[in-house]
């Protein structure tokens, strides 16, 4: 029996074993082993990815329902692993140049990734919390990783204090739910709630209060308004590759967890949480669109952009249907590739080995580095949601789902705010193509950056030609979530 459980958690088990072995390796070899630890971590993530994807039969519950492996989990975990591996590759040269290369960095990223996988597969409020804490704790540390840098330590401290607060809210909500439902298992909770619905009773007030606190905690983790305050400061202060990591993998994991919690055990209570999600979704989209206009730092701009994107993804979740979940999955997958590409461009922004973060530094990039300007323009057009790029389809599916569920206000606000948001994305394109060039950036950018840039750019550009793999995979994942 335990053998079956272990087979189901095999990817996580491999990742945990890999992280501890590499930790020992790093401790004994010292910081000069960091490049090899980092490369081995990426290889390990690839192995975990292969094990995860190539064993579609190993689905089911493990450890008495604490851990759930279904099609949804496999799909989201694959995205998380791609995000982690890509950001890990991007960070090597950055830390080498800053001479802040320490072997704990890839190790902590591995542990954070492990926490994300555990979050995605959580089948119980307890495993939800432990996965979330494993992820968050690793992220707090890598946010403050450049400990001699004032802004990095400030980012780490802010993230830690606010993250602890949100964990507290989440735990409070979980305790209320446990108190009023008598169980922490998602399956048992779903059964209890289904009984309440059949009896035609309204859920008890305590339960709703618990649900609200739980949603508040989760909204903090995906940085949805009004729990977004930490995002710009942390994104700006953390080292750039760490920001790239924050903007990709943890967002996807937290969104997957959000989807699993509200659609799984609380699926019968759509009426209770739909209005909350509609409000935070509208607030996130509007704030993401308006607050980014005045930014001059590109990392801050990306923070507001990610707040806005989370708002769009929540539109799909607020619909509360299978089509909505499908939209969220597609949106997050496309968001992942857009962000990896954009942050790869940001990491290439340096002159004489000094990292640049100002938007004005991109002036005239099309003349000094036409390829990078082209790729960045593709990402910006895609983020703005201009067809036929992938970002348009992401928005299309969530808005369609919202309209099917009758949430017209939400869809209209979403479209309007994406028009407003297009302004600051297009401003970057304008700076690159129509302004006088400044000094050019350092060349060459490095082979791995070119691969990531071209790969992500091609994925975004050619999505409309081959949409089937992503759309079918997302549809199967959404169906698996709602069937389970």
């Amino acid at each position: 029996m335990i053998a079956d459980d272990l087979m189901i958690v095999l990817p996580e088990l491999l990742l945990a074993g890999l992280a501890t072995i590499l930790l020992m390796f790093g401790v004994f070899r010292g910081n000069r082993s960091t490049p090899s630890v980092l490369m081995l971590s990426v290889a390990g993530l690839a192995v975990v990815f292969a094990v995860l994807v190539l064993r579609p039969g190993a689905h089911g519950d493990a450890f008495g329902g604490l851990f759930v492996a279904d099609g949804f989990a496999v799909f989201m975990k694959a995205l998380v692993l791609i995000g982690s591996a890509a950001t890990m590759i991007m960070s090597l040269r950055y830390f080498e140049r800053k001479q802040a290369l320490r072997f704990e960095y890839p190790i902590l990223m591995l542990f954070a990734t492990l926490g994300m996988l555990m979050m995605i597969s959580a089948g119980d409020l307890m495993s939800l919390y432990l996965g979330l804490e494993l992820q968050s704790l690793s992220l707090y540390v890598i946010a403050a990783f450049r400990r001699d840098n004032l802004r990095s330590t400030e980012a780490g401290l802010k993230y830690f204090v606010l993250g602890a607060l949100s964990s507290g809210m989440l735990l409070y909500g979980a305790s209320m739910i446990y108190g009023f439902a008598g169980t922490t298992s998602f399956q048992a909770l779903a059964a209890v709630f289904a009984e309440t619905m059949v009896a035609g009773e309204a859920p008890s007030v305590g339960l709703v209060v618990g649900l609200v606190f739980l949603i508040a905690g989760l909204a903090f983790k995906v940085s949805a308004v009004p729990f977004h305050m930490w995002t710009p400061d942390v994104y700006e202060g953390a080292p750039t590759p760490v920001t790239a990591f924050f903007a990709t993998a943890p967002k996807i994991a937290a969104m997957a967890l959000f989807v699993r919690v509200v659609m799984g055990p609380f699926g019968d209570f759509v009426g209770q949480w739909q209005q909350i999600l509609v409000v935070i979704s509208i607030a996130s989209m509007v704030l993401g669109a308006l607050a980014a206009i005045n930014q001059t730092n590109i990392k801050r701009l990306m923070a507001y952009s990610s707040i806005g994107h989370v708002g769009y993804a929540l539109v799909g979740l607020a619909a509360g249907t299978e089509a909505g979940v499908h939209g969220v999955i597609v949106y997050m997958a496309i968001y992942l590739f857009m962000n990896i590409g954009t942050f790869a461009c940001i990491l290439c922004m340096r002159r004489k080995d000094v990292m640049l973060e100002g938007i004005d530094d991109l002036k005239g990039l099309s003349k000094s580095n036409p390829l990078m300007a082209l790729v960045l323009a593709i990402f910006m057009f895609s983020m703005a949601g201009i067809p036929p790029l992938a970002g348009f389809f992401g928005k299309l599916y969530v808005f369609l789902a919202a309209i099917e569920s009758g949430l017209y206000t939400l869809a209209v606000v979403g479209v309007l705010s994406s028009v407003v948001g297009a302004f600051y994305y297009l401003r970057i394109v304008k700076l690159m193509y129509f302004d006088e060039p400044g000094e050019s950036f350092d060349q060459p950018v490095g082979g791995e950056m070119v691969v990531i840039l071209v790969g992500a750019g091609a994925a975004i550009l050619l999505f409309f030609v081959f949409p089937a793999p992503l759309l079918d995979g997302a549809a199967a994942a959404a169906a698996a979530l709602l069937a389970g």
Partner: protein
Amino acid sequence: MIVQALAFYLFAGMTIASAVMVIAARNPVHSVLFLILAFFNSAGLFVLMGAEFLAMILVVVYVGAVAVLFLFVVMMLDIDLVEIRQGFLQYMPIGGLVGIILLVELLFVLGAWIAVPETAAVTGVPLPPPEQVPNTRALGVVLYTKYVYLFQASGLILLVAMIGAIVLTLRRRDGVRRQSISGQIGRRREDSVEIKKVPNRSGA
């Protein structure tokens, strides 16, 4: 039965007496030692209730870690006792208020116990019954079988916390002299002692 009652009164009396001494002792080191005595006697009370695991944890965690930490802090700090005594009357009302609030809250807890008798029926029946399985074993059985996933996950979280603390605070300083044990052991006589012939009347 009578032995149990005697043991209870002994432990309870000692706990209260040493708790009073914790705040009454003039020397802070004595206070901490009385605190340790109070912990030991509370552990005895737990054993009488059949909660031997809690008793062990109380001794291991509170005596082993917390009280010793207190002791370190008290001995490290240069505490002027006269100065501390000066504010005693001034802080008395607030201290009393906190005490009264604690007392009222305890009464509320007891009141809930009496007002809703089902609580006792639900929470007062541990599974499995303590007559059959000692509670250390009962805890271990669920912890390492049913909740082994959560147990391991907690272990990983603690590992990450440790790595984080080291990453963020450990610094290698230059100019710190460290003991090199292998260097000391590997030292040979020829490395440090030089034998010179000293001719008469001239010195080395």
